[in-house]
């Protein structure tokens, strides 16, 4: 593997990408999560609802579970700390989670 690495630069790129993938493996955005599966919040980007969500318990490390999908798949509802909140997918995309 190491040998090819020095020979072909594009292969190196592929190799690098696999590594990043492995480290970040289970990190994804909230809107990509599967229903009825528990996730932990990892990070939240800046967006208008951020502070509001903090107060509702969307904190780093909090367990969150997508439990409902509206008929058009968007918005979806998430169970967090015993209450259920509906969020649009575009807003949920600002929140990254790990399994």
């Amino acid at each position, binding site marked *: 593997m190491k040998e090819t690495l020095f020979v072909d630069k594009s292969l190196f790129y592929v190799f690098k990408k696999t590594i990043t993938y492995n480290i970040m493996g289970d990190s994804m955005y909230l809107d990509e999560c599967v229903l009825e599966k528990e996730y932990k919040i990892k990070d939240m980007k800046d967006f208008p609802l951020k502070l*509001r969500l903090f107060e509702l318990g969307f*904190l780093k490390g*909090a367990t969150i579970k997508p439990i409902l999908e509206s008929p058009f798949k968007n918005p979806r509802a998430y169970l967090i700390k015993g209450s*259920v909140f*509906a*969020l649009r997918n575009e807003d949920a995309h600002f929140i990254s989670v790990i399994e």
Partner: protein
Amino acid sequence: MKKIALVGNPNVGKSTIFNALTKSKEHTGNWTGKTVEVSSSIFKYKDEEYQIYDLPGTYSLRSNSKEEEVARDFISFHDVDITVVILDASLLERNLNLALQVLEITNKVIVVLNLMDEAKKEVDIDLKKLESYLNVDVIGMSAKNKKDLNHLKETIYHFKERSGYTFSYPRDVKHLVEFLDFKLDDWAKIRLLENDYEWIDKILLKYHIKKDVYLNKKLELLEEGYDADKFTLTMYKYFSSLCFFIASKVVKVKKTTSRKIDKILTHKVYGFIILFFFLLLILWITLSLSSYPTNLLLSFFTYLENKIFIKEFFFSNFFKSVFHVVTFVVSVMTPPMAIFFPLFSYLEELGFLPRIAFNLDACFKKCKSCGKQSLTMMMGLGCNAVGVMGARIMDSKKERLLSILTNVFMPCNGRFPTLITIFIMFFSFFNSNLFVSLLLALTIIFCILITLFISKLLSLTILKKDKSTFLLELPKFRKPNIISILKTSFLDKTLKVLKKAVKASFLAGIIIFVFSNVKINGNSLLIISSNLLDPFGHLLGVDGPILLALLLSFPANEIILPSLLMIYLNQNSLEVLGNDAIKEIFIMHGWDIKEAICFLILLLFHFPCATTLSIIHSEVKSIKWTFLSILIPLTVGILLAFFVNIIM
């Protein structure tokens, strides 16, 4: 007199407690954002008298919605003797945040955990432990229970200030707070460091701190790398984690609620079928139950009229005419309202409405609005004035304007009777209430589509700026208390709307009397003006009398049909007739299906009634938007009717 402030999360039964304490009749419901203004009342207990303030429901004192601003200003700047913080016991983890934020400002606090009986099914809460953590009085109660209410009163009566919670802020926060050497409480200093600039201005004003002194201090801090946004974030995180920490010590979860019903209600197919079914059911029940009491009321009033106006007296014609209009409105309006409102309140208390908003959000998003608009639209079904007021639940100003401007597109209860009569006369191919309610349901769906279309149009043209967001809680289903629903929906909604309608129809009665009795060259004003409107009416597929009736019904939508009959019959007072007789008159005046459709369109889309218009004006506080709220539905109605007239 002692001042008591009630703060609490939305939908936690705060208003119920307020009502129980003061015996007033504020309306309660199972969705957020009911009280936006501070309502206050007096209650007595033993020898003490208390002035009690019901603040709008909030999750925190930090965010920047209108409700939160009102609550926060009240707690921090009015010298309140006792602040009663009401929390939902079953959601303590989240709701403790509010209690902590209030405790940061004042120690004169009683923490009330409401809905204890419901919470007990799911969680165990150690009240003693919570009390020792927070160091203020903590009581658990359920607002429906009389004994618990007395306990609350006792606690208020024997209230003594305690030391309250000792906050240990993160080190960098402490450091910054010490740096600000104003003579202020810690909480106020923290607010001065946060990024809520409106609140900062208020604090500076209240504590007489010169703005330039403050800004100089802040400049020094900025050089050291302080950042207001980061600081605010730290505080948010601090409070949130503190509240979850305490909750984790106090609450033990027994069982989690199942969301099975939600799965069905939000299902791809069943979701909408159920929605439609509920709509149909409500309309059908309203329809089939209301015709009998209406007839009863009508004959009662006729009887009364014959008794009162047995002899001619001064102006008796005038009084008779007005009496006629008012009693007609009352008898046509009351039964549907008295049935519709409780049914609707039942769904509301159950927690059904947020699910509808959840289901429909995607449609509203396409039109650059958000699903909460569907809630205001449903309120508009009862009464547009109520719907316009309900638009306060919208998060952004743009969405609020959208739902105010388009609310009148929903046919309100005042237009229902006319709609139904026309349906029965011209479209009832099957003679059953169910079929008529189906037609009605379809009409409502048509109105919803128009609302969506207009919303889209508006947000593409005059309401361009804001992007809409959607964050909505789906509360647990709650078993509604039927007696209290009947009571509140009757006293609060039905009577209130009825009072307005009586006033409006009184005015309408006078106008109608003047129009039909003032004569120029032997023709009454009624005839003259309807002749004037006639050519314009023909453009829209209707005739002059219809347009005149629409104009005359500006005070109250209910009187369209009777005033139309009055014009047709060239009488000078309203006459009550059966459907067959009405149909005969209509057909005599050249009505056909096309004219009926055009009439329905104009009935659905014209201008808001007087009451709604005055409320719109007081809500938007701008002549321009009020004017647009007339212009938009009017344009839609005219264009649609014109279009139908051409193609049919």
